[in-house]
């Protein structure tokens, strides 16, 4: 029985996708070769056009940071919340405290505050941030620190843009997105812990209403801080845009848009959390 042209075309497309030439297919189906040749040539034009569409590498990296944060929160974060013993957290905090004292004793930390990527003191600045993060006493405190560091990275983006360093600009934009993603993670982790403790609680206490109102205030506070941080970061970046080298302006413009989007997304996640 003769095969339908739809089936033959589909088989030939699979073979072309796999790397065979159009001629290989035409040889296999000489009776349909003339019609098949035209259809496969048209298909090749479509294939070539589609292959040229690629996501921007910076966007792909940023999205991965965003998803990784959600993934960590969903799997690793929840898993570790109930497993890490209190003594280990206390030990980590004590060690981090010692480290902080050491760092504080050296004027390096202060001197590194305004350090920029590629500068000698920049690693010290990042290390000091790590220590501050380890010492954060609450999820809200952690969220606030992430917000502060996101703002710092945005400021640094403006500075590296002046220096014409497009690659650094994209890396920093990814880090802004990462810190903003962590703001959500910190808030979501808090909700998970609260849900768990609510499930274990024997009966609602008289103070439950007050606690809920405190949580609402915290979320509101975070929302306000996020809006302020958005304004300041974008102001710094717009200012940098005005002074940036012409060649770097298009990429900086796109990066500003993506930072604004990252902030908006974070604000909407935090706001949707507060409305629940």
């Amino acid at each position, binding site marked *: 029985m003769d095969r339908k042209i739809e089936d033959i075309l589909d088989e030939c497309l699979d073979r072309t996708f796999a790397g065979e030439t159009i001629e290989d297919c035409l040889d296999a189906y000489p009776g349909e070769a003339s019609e098949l040749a035209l259809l496969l040539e048209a298909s090749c034009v479509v294939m070539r056009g589609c292959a040229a569409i*690629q996501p921007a590498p910076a966007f792909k990296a940023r999205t991965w940071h965003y998803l990784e944060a959600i993934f960590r929160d969903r799997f690793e974060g929840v898993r570790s919340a109930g497993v890490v013993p209190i003594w280990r957290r206390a030990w980590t905090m004590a060690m981090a405290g010692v480290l902080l004292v050491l760092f504080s004793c050296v004027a390096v930390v202060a001197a590194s505050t305004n350090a920029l990527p590629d500068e000698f003191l920049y690693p010290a600045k990042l290390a000091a941030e790590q220590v501050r993060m380890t010492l954060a006493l609450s999820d809200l405190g952690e969220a606030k620190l992430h917000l502060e560091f996101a703002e710092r990275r945005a400021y640094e983006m403006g500075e590296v843009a002046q220096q014409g360093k497009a690659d650094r600009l994209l890396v920093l934009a990814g880090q802004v997105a990462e810190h903003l993603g962590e703001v959500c993670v910190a808030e979501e982790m808090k909700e998970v812990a609260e849900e768990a403790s609510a499930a274990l609680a024997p009966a609602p206490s008289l103070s439950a209403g007050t606690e809920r109102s405190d949580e609402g205030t915290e979320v509101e506070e975070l929302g306000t801080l996020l809006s302020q941080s958005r304004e300041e970061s974008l102001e710094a970046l717009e200012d940098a845009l005005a002074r940036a080298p012409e060649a770097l302006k298009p990429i900086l413009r796109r990066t500003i848009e993506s930072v604004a989007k990252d902030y908006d997304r974070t604000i909407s996640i935090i706001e949707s959390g507060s409305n629940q």
Partner: protein
Amino acid sequence: MPVEKDIVSRAIKGDAEAFAELYEKYFGKIYRFIYLRTGNQTEAEDIAQEVFAKALEAIGSYRWRDIPFASWLFRIAHNQVVDHFRKQGKVERVELEDNVVAADEPSPALVAERRFELEELRANISKLSPAQREVITLRFGAELSIAEVAEALRKNTGTVKALQYNGIVALRKLMMGDSQRWTER
């Protein structure tokens, strides 16, 4: 596809490395599929991100025996695109933004030429019937097999093959109208 089945199983159990492998394999395809439908880089980026966030939310409920993973993922992408157009209250657009990326920094003339070809392709795809457009973008943009396209669109393979054939015939006619590259039989 036993290898992918294993990767998906590990991702469901919370293996970040497995999820990263799936992200690497499908992100470009998902983006390309959405971009062919919207013709707008910013919208395609937003929707692609939403698709993966939704996939991550729902991956725990995914069962291999019901549907291949690629079809499941592109079903989410398809629904997101449909939702996007419904929310915007608009039909699929024709114009394309500059999104032709090349690893080896080609000349501006080459970029312009590629962009022109891509605009032409996207414009022609947008003139297909909705069903043909879905099949062509999934088959060529996402590089799914006919069986995977059929699962993603909840259609049988015979119908999808017919839509693919008619879509390519229509595209060829449209291409002939665009230029003199094609000769009549």
